[in-house]
């Protein structure tokens, strides 16, 4: 199966290999957003990723947070959207907004 659900199996497998692992999950969306709630991105301590939480627009920023939670930072709820100030920064070109929960697998 190549669907969403592989990611959690991979998370356990990576953990078993002794890697540090963090999961990012889309928990809310507003307007047009590329991935629905429940979409997940898996990140390991080296920054390898699997899955997605957007069309590629915010993955870079999410990985940065994922690396921080793997180093012991508390889980965090990130919000991404397009505003005038950040239109050229990290955001969604589609004009939607998403909330992404980032946590370590301990």
């Amino acid at each position, binding site marked *: *199966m190549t669907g969403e659900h592989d990611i*959690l199996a991979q998370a356990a497998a990576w*953990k078993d290999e002794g890697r540090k692992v963090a999961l990012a*999950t889309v*928990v809310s969306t507003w307007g047009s957003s590329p991935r*629905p709630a*429940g979409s997940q991105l898996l990140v390991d301590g080296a920054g390898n990723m699997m899955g997605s939480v957007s069309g590629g627009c915010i993955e870079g920023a999410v990985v940065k947070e994922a690396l921080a939670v793997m180093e012991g930072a508390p889980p965090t*709820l990130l919000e991404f959207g397009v505003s005038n100030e950040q239109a050229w920064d990290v955001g969604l070109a589609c004009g939607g907004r998403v909330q992404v*929960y980032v946590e370590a697998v*301990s």
Partner: protein
Amino acid sequence: MNLQLLRQLNEARAAKRATCLVRFLDRHEESLVVDGKLVDGAPLSPALVDAVAAAHREDRSRTLEGEEGRIFLQIFNPPLRLLIVGAVHIAQALAPMASLAGYAVTVIDPRRSFATDARFPDVALNGEWPDDAMSELAPDRRTAVVTLTHDPKLDDPALDVVLRSEAFYIAALGSTRTHRQRVARLRELGHGDEAIARIHGPAGLDIGAVSPAEIAVSVMAEMTRVLRRPDEPAAG
């Protein structure tokens, strides 16, 4: 989330249970609910139990806000399945497409020269007669069924069983004329208007598909629309 909870979650999903991970986003805790029963974490309020049941029905993960702060319900429904009757050329295109879209695909065809591993690498093959195969595979409301053989001896027995199931999408390949004849035969087997109306025939959206791959795209598109917009009237 800790590894033990992740393992329990993965086991429940592998066992095809209706699974919900309840994430309390503000206090960084999780509860795991499998088939409506609490497996791990803090007990849920009655309102939250109802919300989990509703999220399962709609097959949609969502965030709630209430007295306990923000709570994300992550829904894992049993996997989608596609049962294809007829190991024909179109099936060779449809099986990998559906697999990419997240369906577990089984191709049913008792004709040994059609249903071969060489023609269908990485696809589950079932060589039983289609009615036996269907009874065994028991289509549920997460299952789509497409008949592709054009042969009443193979398609009809499959449809006869499938029409008595909860399959969310039922389609039969064949021209409008072929479909009229098929409908007449199914009526003789005792199927009424309501059952017959569930069959999408000719199969697929009318996008002018010609090649097997294009026909597979049109079937895949129709199946997706019925899955995601079940209340929209059929067209095309």
